[in-house]
């Protein structure tokens, strides 16, 4: 500890797992927004990633509550948030936003979009898989053009509701921090907005990378028109995100309220690597410059793909760093503005780096399983009676 901290402040309360949580929900929201580009805004170019984006969102949404459960002092009591939610608590209300988004938006949209494939797979597979698809189809075998048209219309409506729902999902997380008047690093009306836009940036980058990796693994050609469009949206969203974060920074420096000196010192010292080096230079300026280059100059496919890959990775690292700087940074300084503490992150502890790494890898494993169960690729699904094409 440096300087003075209230005695109870020295130990950090929210660990790297609480950094993971907004990162993961951000990826979910961002991946969904990318999917909605195709469905609602008729950006046909990104259609090849539509289903993949939905499955990616689902894989990450499933993992999202896990870091929270690991963090709780009494995870066995966590259902209390659904039984007796305190309506003035953003955290409690978020439980319902999460549930709404998972059940009414994401699962419904995936089910409606994949229903034809599910029904066909329930007819063409054998054994356990057959039962699985039959349950998923809810016993309905109807894939007539009429029913598929209904699915399409309802799915469209759900995607439409899904866009504000995705904003609500991640905006709420921003509000959980932004509404804490005790903490000047967090308390800001900009917080939900910054969280939403950084979520979109991270989600778009993630789907772009997953698409590139999947194509490489499947040895299929990447649709360059799709990739270029995704990169373009990534670039524009990033500019908005960067502008918002710079606005926050400039506003803080200009007004210089009672917390400023303490926060400024913290950023220059304790948060220098994670904020200035990683989040700003590596995670924001680098991908912005690289993407700007691809937008301004005509480069060969191979070079563009390399630049997109590097930009995507830098973006994800940068947005993770942003979550780190918000959550951990907000706890490193004293509310007396007179001192600082350090975050001691364990490795093989309940809230340590080990579980954090595992929880970051888990969504990819789940995504792999989902992709095998519900192939999102836009090729002809196996028709009943024909020789089994896939697997």
């Amino acid at each position, binding site marked *: 500890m440096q300087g003075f901290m209230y005695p109870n402040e020295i130990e950090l309360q929210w660990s790297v797992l609480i950094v993971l949580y907004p990162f993961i929900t951000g990826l979910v929201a961002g991946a969904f927004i990318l999917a909605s580009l195709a469905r609602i805004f008729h950006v046909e170019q990104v259609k090849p990633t539509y289903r993949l984006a939905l499955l990616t969102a689902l894989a990450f949404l499933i993992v999202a509550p896990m870091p929270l459960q690991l963090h709780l002092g009494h995870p066995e009591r966590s259902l209390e948030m659904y039984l007796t939610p305190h309506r003035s608590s953003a955290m409690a209300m978020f439980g319902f936003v999460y549930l709404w988004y998972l059940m009414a938006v994401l699962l419904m949209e995936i089910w409606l979009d994949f229903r034809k494939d599910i029904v066909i797979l329930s007819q063409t597979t054998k054994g356990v898989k057959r039962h699985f698809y039959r349950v998923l189809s809810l016993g309905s075998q109807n894939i007539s053009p009429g*029913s598929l048209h209904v699915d399409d219309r309802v799915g469209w409506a759900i995607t439409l509701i899904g866009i504000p729902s995705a904003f609500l999902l991640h905006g709420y997380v921003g509000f959980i921090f932004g509404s804490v008047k005790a903490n000047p690093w967090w308390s800001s009306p900009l917080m939900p907005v910054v969280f939403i836009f950084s979520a979109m940036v991270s989600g778009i980058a993630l789907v772009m990378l997953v698409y590139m990796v999947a194509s490489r693994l499947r040895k299929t050609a990447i649709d360059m028109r799709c990739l270029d469009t995704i990169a373009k949206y990534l670039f524009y969203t990033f500019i908005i995100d960067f502008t918002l974060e710079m606005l926050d920074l400039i506003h803080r420096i200009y007004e210089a309220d009672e917390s400023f000196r303490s926060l400024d010192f913290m950023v220059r010292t304790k948060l220098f690597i994670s904020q200035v080096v990683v989040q700003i230079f590596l995670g924001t300026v680098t991908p912005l410059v690289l993407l700007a280059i691809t937008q301004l100059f005509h480069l060969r496919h191979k070079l563009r793909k390399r630049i997109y890959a590097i930009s995507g990775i830098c973006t994800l690292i940068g947005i993770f760093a942003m979550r780190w700087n918000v959550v951990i940074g907000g706890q490193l300084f004293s509310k007396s503005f007179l001192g600082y503490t350090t975050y001691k992150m364990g490795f093989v502890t309940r809230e340590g780096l080990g579980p954090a790494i595992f929880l970051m890898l888990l969504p990819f494993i789940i995504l792999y399983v989902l992709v095998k169960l519900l192939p999102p690729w836009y090729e002809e699904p196996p028709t009943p009676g024909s020789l089994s094409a896939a697997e």
Partner: protein
Amino acid sequence: MVKLQDISHLLRMAAVFAVGLVLFLVFRSAFIPKSFGRYGHFRGDALAEIASRPIHYAGHQACGDCHPEEADTKAKGVHAHVNCETCHGPLAKHAEDPTSMTPQLPDVAHLCVRCHSENIAKPPGFPQVNVAEHSGGQLCDTCHQPHSPALVVGARK
């Protein structure tokens, strides 16, 4: 015109949601603690649970009945408003049943200096001394009777 058979799968899904909602409501009524909401958005029984925690400090009213001499001495000196347990520690058990425990006499070497060693932050009018210079290592109760600490040489029994 939409045919019923073309939306039957949606109706099945709606039924799944309805069942889920009913299950949730049943679960709620089974698992929400009965006293929840009685006085506000919290478990009403908690008030009684917290209010019935064990008491360790008896409070200054409790001592005078059995120790009138000491209480009297104290009331006449400058420690009149220093409660007994400030120096003697928590003694609710002793007050309830005097034979249940023997109270330890305070550790004079550390107790008195905590209040009376000089410190720049203490109010100037408050009696404070540089302990080493003041007593040259002798214990405080050599010269000061704690219950009425005016200077009395040979006060320690």
